[in-house]
């Protein structure tokens, strides 16, 4: 089933032509990655899907319904963890529930059970600065997940991590997704990451962003360290490298 459809989206910032007729489909329970040069307009596309930026042309369909320009439907995560330093991890994770109007206490109770799944058990009452970079990203991901469990937009969620931690997070993400029903749109600069995680990869051009290529990634799951060196991975990587 088509979970999310971006249809023919065009965007100008005043004179700056940023997105040129972008169309894209996210199927249920898929991970779809978007790779593209810096400044091409990837984050802008996410902002449009999330409803906080207006497209000049085009539509956003979610489960077949028009959500163009509407906020509050999909959840959204940045490269920066954007955790509030003055709230504990549990309170940070409860924020989306509180915004939905759920009472603080109830929100906490609803958020708490997910901590073990996200590898944060025992850290509920820690402040963000007491956590490692990887744990902070997991907490941010948990918060994102708690807002909208079915569609998540992840904008370079591991971009700020060192390569080793990043690799661990990628493996963790795949493992946790086995237990969650979620469709994910994923921005990254890292070809290895895109190949490792995705069912499909869209490669964007320089600004104005057009879709330059689409790759269906048939690498079998579960994926692990050996995935990085399997033949299909290596040949797809070569193709994408030569595209960029």
């Amino acid at each position: 089933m088509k979970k999310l459809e971006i249809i023919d989206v065009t965007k100008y910032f005043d004179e700056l032509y940023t997105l040129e007729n972008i169309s894209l489909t996210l199927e249920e329970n898929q991970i779809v990655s978007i790779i593209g040069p810096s400044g091409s307009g990837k984050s802008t596309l996410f902002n449009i899907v999330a409803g906080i930026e207006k497209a000049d042309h085009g539509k956003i369909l979610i489960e077949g319904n028009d959500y163009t320009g509407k906020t509050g439907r999909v959840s959204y995560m940045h490269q920066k963890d954007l955790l509030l330093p003055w709230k504990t991890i549990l309170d940070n994770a409860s924020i989306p529930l509180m915004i939905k109007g759920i009472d603080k206490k109830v929100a906490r109770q609803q958020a708490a059970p997910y901590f073990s799944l996200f590898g944060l058990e025992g850290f509920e009452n820690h402040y963000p600065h007491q956590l490692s970079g990887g744990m902070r990203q997991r907490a941010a991901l948990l918060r994102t997940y708690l807002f909208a469990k079915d569609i998540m937009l992840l904008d370079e969620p591991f971009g700020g991590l060192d390569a080793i931690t990043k690799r661990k997070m990628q493996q963790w993400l795949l493992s946790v997704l086995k237990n969650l029903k979620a469709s994910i749109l994923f921005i990254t600069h890292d070809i290895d990451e895109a190949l490792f995680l995705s069912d499909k990869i869209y490669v964007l051009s320089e600004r104005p962003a057009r879709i330059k290529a689409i790759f269906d990634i048939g690498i079998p799951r579960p994926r692990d360290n050996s995935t990085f060196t399997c033949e299909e991975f290596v040949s797809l990587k070569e193709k994408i490298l030569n595209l960029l």
Partner: protein
Amino acid sequence: MKRLRNTGNSPYTFSILNIDLLPVVFTTFLILLWEVITRLDLVDPFILPAPSKVIHTLVVTFPLMGQHMMATVFEAVVGFCIAILAGILIAIMMDKVRVLKRIFYPLLITSQTVPIITLAPLFAMWFGFGYLPKIVIVVLVCFFPITISLLKGLESVDKDLLNLLKSMGASSWDIYKIVKLPAALPSFFSGLKISGTYSIMAAVIGEWVGGRRGLGIYMLRVKNSFATDRVFAAILVIVLLSIGVLKFIGFIESKAMPWNKEIYGLKKEEE
């Protein structure tokens, strides 16, 4: 990458209760020097009384000065509180409605160049000789740093964080409550500390336009009878009160931002 580390004791540190004793020792030395100079009659005592004399006078005259002090503290506290409320209100308004910021921000900056002391007599003309004109002066002095620093704090919030909350469909009130106000607290408190430093002094200046009670009035009176030691005792009280206000704000700050102590501690090391 900046390094976070715990401070070891530096070789020069000798501290009790987390207070660095070095400046205390140095200040004590300065005061002793002053004592010696006055004891040796190097200056006229009506120009500069000995510190021991000032302390003695402070103790002896405290019952009388205390009454005046209460009035000054009252004016300072009421004025400070009003300044805080007004500052919060106006900063939030300027943050929310950009046109208001464009109109008022330049006026606020310009207003700082008006010598309030010269206006003080006007306030007496307009507001009489009760507490009101003193409180008005305290408000005028304290209001500006609070407003400007709160505004800066509100504006410094990460735009991506605001976008994140907006993408969740958060209301403007949600955004202030969850992000903007807490994020602005450190900046707000640094504004409070600047204002706090001046609040007592502002009340004293306000009292010079006239009134019946207050440290400002007291100072004028004792000066009139050439009791320099009493003038200095009053100055000492003003300094101590101001430091008290600062410490109190610092205390509230640490209570209001329990998370901050550690981050701050680390940050300070970093910088």
